[in-house]
């Protein structure tokens, strides 16, 4: 089952920080190869369609696509915009800010696994600088965690039939699990 949306281009623009007190995060962004993540040719001109932008501390992440924008794209991006600007210690202890490349990996994962009408996940930051996306319904829990090193793991529990998974991401398997969370 593939999403109806097609990503034409994912571009990253990085600028100099205007805040001399803020620790530069350009290294987070400049080491990321977003085009390689999604297998896109950066020279392909964007077709007419939709776009989303995330403002990072030291640049921006722009996603553009054609086809019908998934209903979950806007709320999911809005949440990421909020999380990507968290300050150190946001949990009142020692949490580190969410890494830009965790956000990129999360975006890629969503477009690879979700249908256009899949429920928007609950998106939470992790203290290590990653992101976790969660879906819950009665007796069923699905969590996809993106770690700061961009590895992705899946945790699934279904108390109705006893199924449980705790393993690295298997895109086809997650697409199947997400069928339970379609509107």
């Amino acid at each position: 089952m593939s999403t109806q949306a097609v990503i034409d281009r994912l571009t990253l623009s990085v600028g100099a920080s205007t805040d001399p007190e803020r620790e530069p995060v350009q290294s987070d962004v400049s080491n990321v190869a977003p085009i390689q993540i999604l297998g896109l040719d950066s020279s392909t001109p964007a077709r007419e369609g939709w776009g989303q932008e995330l403002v990072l501390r030291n640049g921006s992440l722009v996603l553009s696509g054609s086809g019908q924008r998934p209903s979950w794209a806007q709320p999911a991006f809005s949440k990421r915009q909020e999380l990507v600007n968290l300050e150190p210690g946001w949990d009142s202890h020692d949490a580190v800010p969410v890494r830009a490349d965790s956000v990129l990996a999360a975006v890629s994962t969503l477009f690879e696994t979700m249908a256009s009408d899949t429920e928007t996940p609950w998106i939470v930051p992790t203290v290590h600088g990653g992101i976790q996306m969660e879906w819950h319904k009665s007796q069923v829990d699905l969590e996809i965690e993106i770690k700061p090193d961009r590895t992705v793991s899946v945790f699934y529990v279904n108390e109705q039939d006893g199924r449980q998974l705790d393993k690295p991401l298997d895109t086809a398997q997650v697409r199947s699990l997400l069928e339970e969370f379609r509107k």
Partner: protein
Amino acid sequence: MSNEPEYVDDQSIGDDEDLWRRLPAYWVKYDYELQTNRVSSQAFQNSPDGTPTSVSISSELNGPEELIEEHPGYGIGSLTAGHSRSCGQGIYRNPRPENPAHAYMFGAKTKGNMRCLARGCEIIVVPSGSP
């Protein structure tokens, strides 16, 4: 010689003791199906440097306000020491000048254990801004 403390479960902390965990809004969401607040499993992860999860022994505080008066907007989740132990954790006292009731919830933070902890956690102060 290792400088790492050896965490030992403190049995003087009874199973029915309530442990409080300070929570930012990002980790709490109202579940309309269950009609209650839900806590993310990520709320029970260890600190980035490997230090165990911080909690406070409620009976040693003068009320929930004491835990969040310096942290406006944060909420509090409560779970019993007994439930924590059933989720593979131990409780280790670690009093601090700013919080004499401070303790560590130590143990393997597997996905299953963290989910277990989250499911046994009741929100007693809802953080402001939680969805």
